[in-house]
């Protein structure tokens, strides 16, 4: 017999389970899904909601199954009359202090509290009374906070601190007055919030939602005086199907293009093209720094949440950040210059819209230094969720639509552009190009297993022309923080650093579809399937290196000249500034 196994009894049936796990984990494996709310497998155990209580024989009180480890001989009951009533009452208490506005709520039909209340069989209320009321915080460029809808499960607080390392949110006040807020209740716009939107991903209700731009977009789409140009990020195609009930990992690229055209976009380009362009610029920047001796490591800059985080917490490393704009901002800059010229359209007439897996891109789009010739480069950013809702709202049969191809010349992309959406993808794409630019030889084995997968920090070494280059990839800002501390400690430790602000990279972005009834937010398997969709996309392409993209070659030939040219610098590069966070002064922070 396996020494590691113990015998427990659940609802009078014996089970052999592995020791060291919690009652909830053991019950999951034995086929009992204990109701739960504050629990999330990626976050620390909070034990706050008390929905997952069970009875353990010999224990005086109910036991939170998420927190309590199993023990040999433990007799557990998960579904007694007393438990059903206690759980029901606990969920009712949450409802009693929650707005009764399900029908007009952002999360209607996709709310964990709603589902839980239904499954608890709450058909009438016993304990109604005073309800909390706080003002919504509408100040943020990316994330809206509505404390009225908060049920204080603390997932957002844990996500923001444990995974993202931002520590923007905390519980404040006591008892019935407890509320989740940033330090000093500062408006989001003034806080250290990176805009990553992971609080939205893990929120069981609509206490956190993205700043919604769907109505604005619908309005402008009907404006006939404008030329409506869209782009969409790699990860949007890999996830949007989930919002329509499809399994995770279906690549919906063609359907998305077709749907956007039906919605009124005149041109639909692919951000993957701009990803290829980013590789050309960033790869060249890397080579230049290698040759000129620095500053190294070069750190990627395409994740907008990461950029804000870096400016606040690592301003001392600004010189190490690639000046290349994100693919979205590069594409938008080209829409209103190169493409406008080519199409003979007045740039002011162009409406540049980006469908992104990201909430922080809303913040990025508003950064003034990204303006092109006095115009905002990206006029509107909508998330995958918003785009999915708009498609539904517009009455488009997304699932059965005939797929279409993107417009050219800013639509054709290599496989390298596709994998931008997964952690490690930028690095992999950059190596494919840098290797060839540097050595003049073609890299044969282009798939880098060492930097694929969801390990938080991944290191690899690649030899280019006899020189060992040390690479490191991190996703999630908490992991980024760790890598930055390594860099601070020993700048020579790495040559090239890829950072993605969200867990898993853009595929796990804060703007991706909500988890459904049968999944959990940021479910590892769903992330893996989304990633696989992008890797498959890469493999299915004949062109897999950014520099081989003929439209990229043409763009340089016709317009930019060469990577890092003056024109390229003007349109495709940017700069960063230190932002001392209000109220929080890190001892490591150098005041610039």
């Amino acid at each position, binding site marked *: 017999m396996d020494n590691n196994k113990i015998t427990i009894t659940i609802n009078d049936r014996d089970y052999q389970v592995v020791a060291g796990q919690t009652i909830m984990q053991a019950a999951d494996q034995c086929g009992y899904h204990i109701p739960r709310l504050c629990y999330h497998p990626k976050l620390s155990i909070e034990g706050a*909601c008390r929905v997952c209580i069970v009875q353990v024989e010999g224990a005086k009180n109910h036991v939170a199954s998420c927190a*309590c480890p199993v023990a040999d001989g433990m007799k557990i009951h998960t579904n007694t009359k007393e438990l059903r009533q206690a759980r029901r*009452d606990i969920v009712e*208490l949450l409802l009693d202090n929650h707005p009764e506005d399900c029908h007009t709520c952002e999360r209607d039909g996709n709310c964990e509290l709603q589902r839980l209340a239904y499954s608890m069989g709450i058909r009438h209320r016993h*304990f109604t*009374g005073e309800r909390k009321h706080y003002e919504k915080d509408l100040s943020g460029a990316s994330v809206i906070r509505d404390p009225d809808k908060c049920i*204080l499960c*603390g997932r957002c607080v844990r996500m923001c601190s444990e995974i993202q390392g931002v520590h923007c949110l905390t519980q404040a006040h006591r*008892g*019935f007055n407890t509320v989740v807020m940033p330090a000093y209740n500062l408006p989001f716009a003034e806080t250290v919030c990176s805009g990553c939107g992971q609080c939205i991903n893990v929120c069981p209700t609509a206490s956190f939602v993205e700043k919604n731009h769907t109505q604005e977009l619908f309005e402008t789409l009907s404006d006939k005086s404008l030329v409506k140009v869209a782009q969409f990020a790699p990860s949007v195609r890999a996830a949007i199907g989930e919002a329509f009930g499809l399994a995770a990992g279906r690549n919906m690229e063609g359907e998305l293009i077709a749907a956007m055209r039906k919605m009124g976009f005149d041109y639909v380009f692919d951000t993957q093209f701009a990803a290829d362009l980013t590789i050309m610029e960033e790869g060249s920047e890397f080579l230049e720094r290698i040759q000129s001796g620095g500053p190294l490591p070069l750190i990627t800059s395409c994740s907008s949440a990461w950029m804000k985080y870096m400016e606040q917490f690592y301003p001392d490393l600004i010189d190490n950040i690639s000046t290349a704009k994100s693919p979205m901002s590069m594409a938008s800059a080209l829409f209103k210059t190169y493409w406008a010229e080519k199409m003979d359209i007045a740039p002011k007439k162009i409406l540049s819209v980006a469908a992104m897996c990201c909430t922080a891109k809303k913040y990025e789009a508003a950064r003034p230094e990204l303006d092109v010739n006095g115009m905002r480069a990206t006029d509107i950013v909508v998330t995958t969720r918003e785009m999915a809702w708009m498609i539904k709202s517009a009455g488009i049969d997304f699932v059965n639509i005939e797929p279409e191809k993107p417009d050219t010349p800013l639509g054709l992309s290599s496989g390298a552009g596709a994998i931008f959406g997964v952690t490690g993808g930028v690095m992999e794409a950059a190596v494919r190009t840098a290797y060839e630019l540097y050595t003049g030889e073609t890299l044969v084995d282009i798939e880098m297993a060492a930097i694929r997968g969801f390990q938080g920090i991944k290191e690899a070494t690649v030899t280019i022309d006899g020189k060992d280059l040390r690479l490191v990839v991190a996703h999630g800002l908490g992991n980024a923080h760790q890598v930055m501390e390594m860099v601070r400690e020993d700048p020579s430790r790495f040559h090239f650093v890829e950072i993605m602000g969200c867990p898993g990279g853009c595929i796990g972005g804060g703007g991706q579809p909500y988890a459904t009834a049968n999944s959990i937010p940021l479910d590892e398997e769903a992330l893996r399937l989304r990633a696989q969709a992008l890797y498959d996309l890469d493999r299915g392409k004949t062109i897999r290196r950014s520099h081989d993209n003929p439209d990229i070659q043409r763009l340089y030939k016709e317009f930019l000249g060469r990577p890092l040219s003056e024109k390229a610098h003007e349109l495709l590069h940017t700069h960063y500034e230190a932002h001392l966070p209000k109220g929080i002064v890190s001892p490591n922070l150098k005041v610039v």
Partner: protein
Amino acid sequence: MTATYRIIVCDGTTCINSGARRLTALLKEHLDKHDLTETVTIGLSGCLGMCDKGPIMVVNPGYTIYGGLSEADIPKIVEEHLIKGQPIARLAIQEDHLYNRFFRVFGDDKFFGHQMRITLRNCGIIDPESIDDYLSLRGYEALAKAITDMTPEQVVAEVESSGLRGRGGAGFSTGTKWKFTAAQEATPKYVICNADEGDPGAFMDRSAIEGDPHTIVEGMAIAGYAVGADKGIVYIRAEYPLAIRRITKAIEDARAHGLLGDNVLGSDFSFDIEIRLGAGAFVCGEETALIHSIEGARGMPRPRPPYPSVRGLFGQPTLINNVETWANIPVIILDGANWFKTVGTETSKGTKVFALAGKVVNTGLIEVPMGTTLREIIYDIGGGIPQGKTFKAVQTGGPSGGCLPEEYLDTPIDYDSLAKAGSIMGSGGMIVIDEDSCMVDIAKFFLEFTQNESCGKCTPCREGTKRMLEILTRITEGKGQNGDIEKLERLGHMIIKSSLCGLGQSAPNPVLSTIKNFRVEYEEHITEGKCRARACSNLLTYEIIDTCVGCGACRKVCPVAAISGSPKKEHVIDQEKCVKCGMCFNTCKFDAIAKV
């Protein structure tokens, strides 16, 4: 080298009359003669209480009490005791256990007669800011004994064998906690003194620290040795400035005397203590919340296991005990577990300190052996109910304890009997309630406190206590509904069984125990709109009865001009206007205003 002594001469009236001051002068002469003025100091104390045996002189260390002294005895004491170190048995008054000292000091009147002071043994006797005073009363002897004569295992075994249970409220076996912490291999380990006393009206821990801070320091150092910790933290609420000052000084003095710091008493054992101030959150008395608070995080409890003894402060094994628990440790080490076990009941050993308050003649701080009955405390020590009123209930255990009616007065005080009766030991609040108090109102008062102090983390406590309070409020306002009592019971039981920490698990106690023992009062409020104690203002009317002489005093104080009447004629209250503030009632000198 001559030993150092401190001699306390009783400076009470009787001893002075029987020649104490003359003897003191003589003692000084002899000390001069033998060149002992450097090493022997003389101090005075208040009345030691043994007036028939005066004049009295106490020689420390050793606590030798000499009584009935004459001039001829002084040179003998100097030569035999102070120079040769041989106490003179013939002159000494009988020696026995540490705790008795207090009663030798304060005599045996009714208030003290039923008490037994183990943890408060030095309070009121020593100068709490003087380490010499503490040392002179066998202070730090227990630490020395532990370090030199005992292995850490033996110390843990002694504490375990004593049967001491945590005095913070839950009553968990102290020895077991020590054993668990000692068994952990991870280092560093921490020892914490929980001095975040938060119960309204409770001042046991504050008094203990203010009166005898070194006992806590000594107890913690012994624990540090026993469990292998080299760092101690006293977590004390910032609202206790005097206690903070005294414990800070005690730590500094102990450090200066080599009793804390590196190589305590020249041994290999090193231990030091620092102070952390709490910011006034009641929940920070809960051990995991307290640990979070020290770590700089929001003071919210977390689920256990893991217990702090396994993963506590900064993730390290941590032993956390309450002030009163710590104060027992030096006594257990010095007098031994076998002696300690003789005090108390089968399952609860030792004494318990209570803050006796409410409708009782003698209020104050008392320490009684476990097993003393509620009746003995209230009527013998407390002197009964003032103004001839009738006893109604006693509330034990602070804001989350239960209210016990008369039939429970013979309940012996120990953890298990109180729990069985439907209350808790808690940290030692004891509030006596008489006929003038409404039990619904009392329940509301306590719940209001716990509801306010809920940390807001877990649903049952945060949301559930709020709903209970709303129901109680409407009952006291005469707006109770049928089914409200059942809702209170349903919520109360759920909250007790489902909450994350001890705060929620006990918050409904005052409500449930008053429903159990005084259900009829709840029913009267709801169905008859009546408050028998006339405490719920919404449920009573003020009326002027025929003893009114028409003095007009009530008319003048009424803030809403609800009272009318001509001079020397009976006045009338307009019930429509009356806001039931009670000012007329308090003003009337003729008992002419009745609560109806």
